[in-house]
């Protein structure tokens, strides 16, 4: 069975936010408006975190695109009282919007702040939304799913054509949109895939690795002579 993972090369990331916008459009992540954003309620499954430079006041040291890190030992799934969030057999941490009771325990437990809450009803069905992704009602938690609907679609297509899923057939919106090709996505269990090759690089590091959450989204540090 595949293990889906992502490698983000910080050497390539320019902080352009294309991944953020692609994610929002793909997954029907609503824009919450200026007032709500001011209250700290922005919904953005993919975020580009700007790490400040301690040596140079006001400068950004590096940009860290942060989707859900799809931990292999996720702190969020353990605490859910209703199995609304769980790790599926292919390692994707999923969220069942129709079951979530909105206790926000998973948000409190996630050390990466990768889960988001619908504080209000932020959107109604309108034209231009992606029909493959359900809209979230008010009062539930939502999160990055590695564009899971794309996997389902690709798999259906392969089933119709009576063949196996080919590498590259399933890709996330953020990886697709990145103009600098900083984001690679694919099957970590396939040693020939690009993402598996990159994840063997000596430049690999994980966010908050010491917590033992074993994220399947890993990063490549800036190369020598940089950063």
């Amino acid at each position, binding site marked *: 069975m595949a293990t889906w993972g992502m490698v983000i090369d910080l050497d390539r990331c320019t902080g352009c936010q294309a991944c953020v916008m692609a994610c929002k459009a793909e997954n029907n992540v609503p824009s919450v408006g200026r007032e*709500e954003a001011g*209250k*700290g*309620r*922005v919904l953005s499954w993919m*975020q580009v*975190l*700007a*790490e400040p430079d301690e040596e140079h006041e006001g400068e950004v040291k590096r940009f*860290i695109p*942060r989707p859900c890190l799809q931990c292999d030992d996720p*702190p969020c799934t*353990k*605490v*859910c*009282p*209703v*199995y*609304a969030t769980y790790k599926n057999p292919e390692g994707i941490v999923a969220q069942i919007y129709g*079951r*979530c*009771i*909105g*206790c*926000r*325990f998973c*948000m*409190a*437990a996630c*050390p*990466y*702040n990768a889960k*988001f*809450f*619908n*504080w*209000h*009803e932020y959107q109604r069905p309108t034209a231009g939304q992606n029909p493959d992704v359900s809209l979230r*009602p*008010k*009062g*539930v*938690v939502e999160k990055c799913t590695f564009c899971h609907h794309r996997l389902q679609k690709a798999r259906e297509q392969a089933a119709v054509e009576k063949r196996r899923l080919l590498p590259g057939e399933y890709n996330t919106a953020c990886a697709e949109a990145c103009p600098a090709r900083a984001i690679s996505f694919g099957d970590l269990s396939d040693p020939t895939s690009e993402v598996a090759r990159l994840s063997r690089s000596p430049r690999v590091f994980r*966010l*908050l690795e010491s*917590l033992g*959450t074993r994220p399947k989204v890993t990063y490549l540090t800036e190369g020598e002579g940089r950063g």
Partner: protein
Amino acid sequence: MAERLEVDELLLDPIRKTGRGFWIAFAALLGLIAWGAAAYLTQLRVGLGGTGLQQPVSWGFYVTNFVFFIGISHAGTLISAILRLSKAEWRRPVTRMAEVITCMVLLVGGGQILVDLGRPDRLLNVIQYGRYQSPLLWDATSITAYLTASTVYLYLPMIPDIAILRDNLHGKWNFLYRVLALGWTGSERQHQILNRAITIMMVMVIPIAVSVHTVVSFVFSMTLQPMWHSTIFGPYFVVGAIFSGIAALIIAMLIFRRAYRLHAYLKPIHFQYLGQLLLVMSLLWFYFTFAEYLTAYYGGEPEEMKVFWSKFTGRFRFQFWAMFTCNFVVPIVCLTRLKKNTIPRVLIASITIVIGMWLERYIIVVPSLSAPRLPFQEGSYAPTWVEWGELAGSFGLFSMFYLLFTKFFPVISIWEMKEGRHQAIGEVMERVKSYLPDTAEPATAHAGGTEVAP
């Protein structure tokens, strides 16, 4: 068989008569409840966005209230069970009031979770799809067990009193007392069974009570968040719970002492003993707080230190030092040398402790969430009128439950007072004698009878 009351008629007065004071209190509490209801309806309509919660501070007042109210519940059944178990004779006028607090406040405390949910309509998913790995389910189990046990433990010692009400009050509520008295006649055998049942319940209720606040603390300590992931949280929460509980009990006792003129029953000596207990708990609370913060400080892990300094000198410093003053400084000043001015001093300390313990819960919940491990998304939390309304409404609801209880049942156990007068004095004398070394002569021989012949 109609039991005749001679001396304790006074205890039935609040049930017989309803004065102006009751209606004023009733109206005031109704006002608070209305505020809470308006807040909750608003929240249902607009969603949790009506509160000041946001990312990353996704838990605020409601979770604070939950921990606080569940903590208050430890006043009652636990204290009452410990006092009964240790045969503290001064407990007699105290236990009933304590037990009522537990039952009423557990309902309100458990309700906080419902208020906190984004989708209260899906609450029953917890039963249908319950995942036992989640500390929230441990809470639900433990609190349900505690509520059940506490209700039984409140009800059992009330049976003889309900029989007294059945025989003495012939109003429209008589049927209620007739049903609840379960045919109590006061026979020797009934007393034996009752005492046995009370003994079983009080032994059972102590571990349950300890488990309740331990698993409440697990909600926090099982996560990896800085300053939450701590092994000390279980006992720390239990100590804080008993601490705030005793303070709430003292306040309730003083209110009813004044409102129902119970001065003859609740004497300064009772408050002195409870005050001393409170002082011990204050020291214990300080000990745990000290151990908790010193460990974090000495370890100096950067993420923990961020939370640590936000409490000591940063944006939560007012709440933090107010908590410290309320829970430690004021109690130490007020509760030492309690012989003089006992009641006002105990009252001041109790009020500050209740406030201080609420702040303590707040200072545990909010700062850790405000400074997450990935430092790029810090948040500050400011409650709106919705959260204040829920706090006021919860307090109003709890007080209203309590007030209504006192209108139906005596707040001081009549039969236990009687037992104290008629039996306990003799029993205590026997008991004390049994502690002393056996002498050939009766112990009454001489005043200076400590020299014992071998």
